[in-house]
């Protein structure tokens, strides 16, 4: 429980923290940020007139990968922005954190908002963006208000607006809020939403770098991605890379939730064993046995506990374990949990949140939910598991955005790893696991 009650021990986010280092919950203001070296990276770039391409090269060297879920190299993405373009270009920060299990961007914005602003300024310099927006999850209104305050501080100090610190760089930044739609986390759904429409994702290509906000070149990055940039510029891409592993540079904030003693955010070097994170979070709640872990937000395939205990937390290692590092949201599930019921809740979520644009997703998520629901409530039929696979397969790869895959992957992985439990439900009309939740359902 490390995120709700400031002031807290500044070491609470872990000894390897750089983005969350030294934060107490009370030192989020501009003067605090400057006191710990904030805005120095920006000043260095502006004073030394480092070329935008050199900034991008440094970020490429750092192997910073997008922290929003897909893990796309940030420097490479920046390089896609057209150089010669007459007219506005945009930078958008994706703080629409709604992937179940993920609550890191909230803490970055709450405890260190200026690092995001500085990261965006550096990205604006590198990509030639003239204005930026931070799209903030509507559910965290107080954090949206704080970000507005941080913007006002930065503007008053000359970091934002025309002619930043007298350098000739101009960059305006605004906060925009969502209002309860998971799909707006998808970057083109987010852009549609910013234009004042339903958040229905766009067909790609064209990608945002050529056709983004208002049809202008746009770069969208996650909050944590921007937050890492000042450190990279201040300390060098090589130093950041070395914090992690080849192709997996730096630290990553892991939001650990579910059945652990101390849920919260822990910032670790990429490549840290999962077992270490679990230990930092106080282990499985009540000393119970670990059953399974969803290592990268609810859209990531579930991994059996034993396998996860042998896995390191970086993009490539988690992929080898058959899942995804995703947003770094680690959902811990103990032995008392009914996996059918767990999947039922997730399937309901995707069904609820499908934007309805693509038939395979709109219809398929409903099918999957109804099938898992009937298995869970004791009305499952022989053949339902094959049917589930079939529906999942018919969604995957057939939709405009990745929400379809995000709904199908949990279904496939839950059934693949815990087929016995599903089969037991179908055959006996009740749960194999003696959890309170399961008993409640069986009653």
């Amino acid at each position: 429980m490390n995120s709700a009650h400031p002031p807290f021990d500044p070491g609470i986010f872990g000894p390897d923290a750089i983005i969350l280092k030294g934060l107490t919950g009370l030192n989020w203001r501009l003067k605090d940020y400057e006191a710990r070296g904030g805005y120095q990276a920006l000043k260095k770039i502006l004073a030394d007139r480092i070329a935008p391409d050199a900034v991008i090269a440094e970020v490429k060297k750092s192997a910073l990968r997008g922290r929003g879920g897909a893990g796309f190299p940030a420097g490479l993405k920046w390089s896609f922005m057209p150089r010669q373009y007459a007219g506005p270009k945009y930078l958008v920060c994706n703080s629409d954190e709604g992937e179940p299990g993920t609550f890191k961007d909230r803490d970055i914005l709450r405890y260190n908002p200026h690092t995001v602003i500085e990261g965006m300024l550096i990205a604006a310099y590198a990509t030639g963006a003239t204005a930026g927006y931070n799209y903030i999850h509507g559910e965290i209104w107080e954090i949206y208000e704080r970000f507005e305050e941080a913007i006002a501080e930065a503007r008053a100090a000359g970091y934002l607006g025309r002619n930043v610190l007298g350098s000739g760089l101009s960059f305006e930044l605004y906060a925009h809020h969502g209002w309860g739609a998971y799909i707006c986390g998808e970057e083109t759904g987010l852009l549609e939403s910013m234009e004042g429409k339903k958040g229905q994702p766009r067909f790609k290509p064209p990608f945002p770098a050529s056709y983004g906000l208002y049809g202008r070149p746009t770069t969208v990055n996650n909050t944590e991605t921007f937050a890492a940039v000042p450190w990279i510029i201040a300390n060098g891409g090589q130093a950041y890379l070395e914090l992690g592993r080849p192709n997996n540079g730096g630290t990553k904030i892991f939001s650990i939730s579910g059945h652990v003693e101390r849920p919260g955010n822990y910032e670790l070097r990429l490549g840290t064993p999962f077992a270490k994170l679990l230990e930092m979070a106080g282990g499985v709640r009540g000393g119970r046995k670990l059953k399974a872990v969803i290592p990268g937000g609810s859209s990531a395939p579930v991994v059996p506990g034993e396998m996860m205990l042998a896995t390191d937390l970086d993009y490539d290692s988690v992929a080898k374990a058959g899942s995804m590092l995703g947003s770094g949201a680690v959902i811990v599930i103990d032995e008392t949990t009914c996996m059918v019921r767990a999947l039922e809740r997730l399937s309901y979520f995707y069904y609820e949140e499908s934007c309805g644009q693509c038939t395979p997703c709109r219809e398929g998520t409903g099918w999957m939910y109804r099938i898992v629901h009937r298995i869970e409530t004791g009305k499952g039929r022989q053949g339902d598991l094959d049917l589930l696979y079939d529906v999942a397969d018919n969604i995957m790869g057939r939709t405009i955005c990745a929400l379809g895959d995000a709904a199908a992957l949990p279904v496939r992985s839950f059934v693949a790893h815990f087929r016995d439990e599903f089969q037991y439900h179908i055959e006996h009309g009740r749960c194999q696991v003696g959890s309170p939740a399961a008993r409640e359902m069986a009653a």
Partner: protein
Amino acid sequence: MLSKESLQKIDAATAKYPPDQKQSAVMAALVVAQEEKGHLSTEVIEFVAGYLGMPPVAAYEVATFYGMYDLKPVGRHKLCICTNLPCALAGANEAAEHLKRKLGIGFNETTADGRITLKEAECFGACGDAPVMLVNNKKMVSFMTPEAIDKFLAELK
């Protein structure tokens, strides 16, 4: 239709976007309108559309797409509890049952005195603080165990 303060807030939101992109402020404007009126009636949505110079149907689409807009009246307090999996693993279902029992209502219902509306919600991005509840959209309360809920309800006006 809307108060001067509300219109000022909408104008401030509109100023964030290029002059020919006023529609970008529709989400913010609908939030302001909902806050003043309690819920978004057809008339209010049409007013907001007109104020921003967009077709009414475009504003309806937005009002119906995003989950936190209330198109029907709600109680004086709207409580939304997240029951998504990470929260459910940490006691959200028990918290939700407790709320329902204490209030004598189910999800999407309002107490007879019009005081509280209860809703089930999806992930707020606060799963480490589970169970979590949103109070009137803008205030989040954390670690809502049954005891914490009792205390919270006793203090709610």
